[in-house]
């Protein structure tokens, strides 16, 4: 008998169904139920995480390709940043060993020069004052610059006596050095004072500018990583369309459906980050030979900075963050479109 709205006879065979959304059970059971809910929530996280990793592992080619694209995009700015940091560290070293060259006036004799040396040596700001005789200077110049022939034409030594002053450790600040230079320059016996730091400052400025440029580049590449991951997640969603439909039909919430894809993004990011680390190491190894050669030419012990452990952790965190973001965007956009019809 079909029941019309007017003619129905309530059936008493079954207690009423609790209306959705589901109610929790009684207070006495509430805590146990809450505990169980938490357990099964964590359980689903574990299952999703494992299942997502499993899927990446079972499709090694596409996983590696996605991972490699991410890795290249991440490794490029990291290598550039490391090179720049190395250069900046180098200029920092030079700053530490800055010397002040004090060229004495032509009419300042050797006696006077030695007197000055004694006088300045006594000052706290300076740790060392070396006197270089004009003849010695000419000799050095001749040897180093390979200009013997030109120097032959000179009637007399054009070079003055020189004092090379090394600032004491505690006084290596720009203001102190400038004050020192000012007082040196005011002396009659002194012709010129040179603290050749200008080029270092310029180098620093250039490095800083490049660092900014690398950060912008890194940001753009980060966007690329997000898009790449978003795209691979979009394809994963398409591939699992029927599964998503069934899960939605049996009452899977959006969070439930989303979770495995977010883990896929996270793992892709992690894989990309690890590959990026490997690429960075390879690139640094590759660059280290020519850099060492170059450094040797300049009698420098300069070498490229390696990625520190904390840097590796940040790299992985950033990669996973991008992965999560990319998959989240893809999931937000595409999962909505898959609804049972």
């Amino acid at each position: 008998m079909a029941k019309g709205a007017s003619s129905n006879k309530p059936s008493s065979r079954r207690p009423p169904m609790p209306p959705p959304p589901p109610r929790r059970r009684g207070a006495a059971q509430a805590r146990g139920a809450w505990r169980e809910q938490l357990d099964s929530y964590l359980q689903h996280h574990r299952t999703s995480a494992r299942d997502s990793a499993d899927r990446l592992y079972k499709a090694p080619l596409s996983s590696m390709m996605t991972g490699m694209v991410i890795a290249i995009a991440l490794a490029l700015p990291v290598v550039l940043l490391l090179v720049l940091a190395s250069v900046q560290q180098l200029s920092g070293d030079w700053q530490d060993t800055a010397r002040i060259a004090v060229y004495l006036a032509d009419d300042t004799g050797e006696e006077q020069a030695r007197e000055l040396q004694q006088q300045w040596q006594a000052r706290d700001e300076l740790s060392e004052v070396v006197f270089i005789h004009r003849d010695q200077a000419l000799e050095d110049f001749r040897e180093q610059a390979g200009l013997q022939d030109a120097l032959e034409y000179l009637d007399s030594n054009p070079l003055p006596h020189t004092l090379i002053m090394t600032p004491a450790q505690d006084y290596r600040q720009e203001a102190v050095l400038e004050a020192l230079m000012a007082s040196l320059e005011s002396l009659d016996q002194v012709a010129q004072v040179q603290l050749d730091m200008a080029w270092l400052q310029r180098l620093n400025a250039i490095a800083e500018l490049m660092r900014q440029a690398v950060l912008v580049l890194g940001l753009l590449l980060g966007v690329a990583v997000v898009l790449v991951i978003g795209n691979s997640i979009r394809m994963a969603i398409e591939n699992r369309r029927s599964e998503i439909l069934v899960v939605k039909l049996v009452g899977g919430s959006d969070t439930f459906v989303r979770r495995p894809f977010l883990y896929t993004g996270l793992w892709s990011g992690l894989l990309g980050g690890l590959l990026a680390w490997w690429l960075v190491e390879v690139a640094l190894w590759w660059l280290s030979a020519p850099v060492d050669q170059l450094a040797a030419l300049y009698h420098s012990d300069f070498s490229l900075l390696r990625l520190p452990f904390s840097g590796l952790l940040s790299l992985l965190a950033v990669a996973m963050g991008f992965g999560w973001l990319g998959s989240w965007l893809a999931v937000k956009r595409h999962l909505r479109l898959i609804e049972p019809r």
Partner: protein
Amino acid sequence: MIEFQHVSKHYGERFTALRDLNFHLPRGEMAFLTGHSGAGKSTLLKLIMLMERPSQGRILVGGQALDRTPRRQVPYLRRHIGVVFQDHQLLFDRTVFDNVALPLMVCGTPPREIARRVRAALDKVGLLSKEKMSPVQLSGGEQQRIGIARAVVNKPSLLLADEPTGNLDPALSADIMGLFQQFNQVGVTVLIATHDIALVERLGRPVMTLDQGRLIRGGQRVQEPAHG
């Protein structure tokens, strides 16, 4: 359990799937929905499942007005409704066990409880021995029974079936209907859409017939009881 009040469903400007439908299916009832193909049977079931929303009218399921159910709440509503499809919608890349466990997993049922209830459901449909197999290895009738096990594993108070015997021979069909009757006997409200008139008549249950989106038998429009 299910109440339709002046429900219509239009697709676009021109096509009307359901026109001014009124009926009430009481709790614990087992009824059939028949009609030629395209009469609107599937649309009606989809409205109950909130896979579609009505263009006009009101639908109440278990006392809850569906028009007031926000999108986020839809999954929770579906957890109280078991559905069996003609093409059973099984996932072939998972075992029988995992297929049946799906509705419990989405609710966050603890694993031990899942195992217990999945086995109970599989036992009920007589396929406990096949839990580790893939659905591909099973026959059409067995696949349909897996679909039924999945629909009831959650102990829903409402069971919907869309042409559950569509691809099966008469003996298997009777078998499947027997299962539905068993669930009905323990209090589950059952609504089955089918075009297998002969089978329906034999069971002597209430019948609603749709024609061109109108209810021409059963429900409110036809006062006389259909059968039995």
